[in-house]
């Protein structure tokens, strides 16, 4: 399994090591679910209600401290930080969903294909996979931004493409073990075609692992989007984005550190949430784990 931080892929410990790297299994799932649920709820509520207009510039209330009226205070333009944070959650989730969606839709069939055709087709798919791995999400997104103009769209497509290999690898590994099972043999003997076997037997059986990968990839996508917006290659102003809020806070670090702390904490908690959720789900779904502790 792979996990990526800021781009490159890091293999997940598997087997015995994996059980321990993750530790407290039920706790991970619960804390992860709560954090992810909070981000989701914040984003949903922001569609119906925010304390203030997140884009409303009001010089009279510039750089207000936190209080009853402005929970987290206001930024240098007098915009409400809490409202920006809420709408920013939308951006974060949107990018995550599309990026992970692109990666899953492209990567899963490729991985299953590589598993089912073990000849040169499979080899080619996996080598191409390794090649894409050499283009980390951030680099790819900067290239996409240069060619197509930087926007939320190019950022999430680039992050999605960079995440394809992670899905292809997981899908291939899991599909290989399913293909070796007796029920697949039985299905083959009954004359089922390859596509039918892939759709009816392989996909349902590897879905759990793919969900785990989706959660971990989501965390990476959140990090990548934040980094890109921070660099000015992601979400464009005035749409609120956590990464850009952080970037805008830099010049006022001496005066108002909360401008950095609030979006920073939001990014960290969201990433932590998706990582923990992924860890917790893996304990449920990964059949290779020994139940030791």
């Amino acid at each position, binding site marked *: 399994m792979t996990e*990526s*931080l*800021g*781009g*490159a*892929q*890091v*293999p997940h*410990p598997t087997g*015995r*090591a*994996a059980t*321990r*790297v993750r*530790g407290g299994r039920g706790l991970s799932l619960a804390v992860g679910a709560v954090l992810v649920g909070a981000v989701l709820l914040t984003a949903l509520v922001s569609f119906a209600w925010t304390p203030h207009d997140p884009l409303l510039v009001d010089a009279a209330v510039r750089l207000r401290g936190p209080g009853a009226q402005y929970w987290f205070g206001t930024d240098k333009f007098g915009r409400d930080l809490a409202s920006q944070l809420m709408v920013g959650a939308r951006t974060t989730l949107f990018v995550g969903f599309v990026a992970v969606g692109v990666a899953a839709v492209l990567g899963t069939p490729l991985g299953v294909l590589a598993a089912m055709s073990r000849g040169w087709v499979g080899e080619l798919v996996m*080598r191409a996979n*390794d*090649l894409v*791995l*050499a*283009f*980390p999400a*951030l*680099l790819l997104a*900067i*290239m996409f*931004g*240069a*060619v197509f103009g930087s926007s939320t769209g190019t950022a999430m497509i680039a992050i999605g493409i960079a995440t394809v290999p992670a899905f292809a690898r997981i899908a291939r590994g899991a599909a290989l073990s399913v293909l070796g099972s007796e029920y697949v043999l039985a299905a083959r003997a009954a004359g089922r075609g390859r596509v039918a076997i892939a759709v009816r037997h392989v996909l349902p059986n590897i879905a759990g692992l793919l969900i785990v990968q989706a959660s971990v990839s989501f*965390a990476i996508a959140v*990090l990548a989007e*934040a*980094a890109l917006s*921070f*660099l000015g290659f992601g979400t464009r102003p005035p749409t609120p984005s956590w990464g850009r809020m*952080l970037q805008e*806070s*830099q010049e006022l*670090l*001496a005066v108002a*550190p909360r401008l*950095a*702390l609030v979006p*920073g904490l939001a*990014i*960290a*908690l969201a*990433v*932590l949430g998706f*990582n*923990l959720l992924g860890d917790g789900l893996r304990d449920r779904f990964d059949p290779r784990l020994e139940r030791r502790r």
Partner: protein
Amino acid sequence: MLYQFARRLLILLVSLAVASVAVFLFLAVLPGDPAQVALGVNATPELLANTRHEFGLDQPLVVRYLRWIGGVCVGDFGRSYVTGDAVAPQVFDRLGVTLWLVGAGMLVALLIAVPAGTFAATRHRRPSGMLISGASQLGVAVPAFLAGVLLVRVFAVQLRLLPSGGWTPPNQDPVEFLRGLILPALSLGLVQGAVLTRYVRSAVLDVLREDYLRTARAKGLTPFRALARHGLRNAAVPVVTVLGLQLATLLVGAVVVERVFVVPGLGSLLLDSVGNRDLLTAQAVVLLLVVAVLLVNFVVDLLYTALNPRLRQGA
């Protein structure tokens, strides 16, 4: 072993070739005519045509690629369409700066991860061990640029101990150089250290259960000496793999951290050249980063086999 090596080398060479074509094609379709960018909006059509010819832009893509890659192979990345300067010296200059950051970041990561991971492994069911595991889980969630911004706030703005950014070359003023290196290296290294701690811990835990370690203990070695003499080398195998892959992460992570600390490395060069539509420079930087990632992965593969005798025989 030799067959494995040859096969991996072949895959590496093909990957390098395909990657270079991809980088070239991708940035060749960059909108905006380099000749126009170089001459400005008031250029006459004749002058534009001349300049295009001079840059070789009127040639077919294949010829342009072959010229470019031919030059790259002998260390010549061409002349920037925008500034007219040779690209290679600039790129290698910036690479040096980035390598300082990456090296120092890696050092920080190792200094954190090896003791913390080993400690957490030896106490893995006690509160102190669990605390370290929890802290590393938290550290993984903090992006390097956030760590950078927070470090600047504390050490540069509040305590005024270290500079908030900028870069002094080591041969100019070693002390200032080190002072400037600390915060960027910490922001890169803290996060990677958190990631690495989890792997060191799990690798050491695995080794602690092995029979040879029990034998070493039975021969009278203290737990610490048994681990130091027999355990760590074996625990290093999975850790080296992760370390190699982290090197790639650090290279890309440096792009963002350089922006935070206004460090003139490869990342700043990439962002600036993309901003200025400086096609050849951007191409050179992207190619360099991608080649670095491919090479690192190749070396990690080899090291993995070399460090693990069991794999050597199987190959």
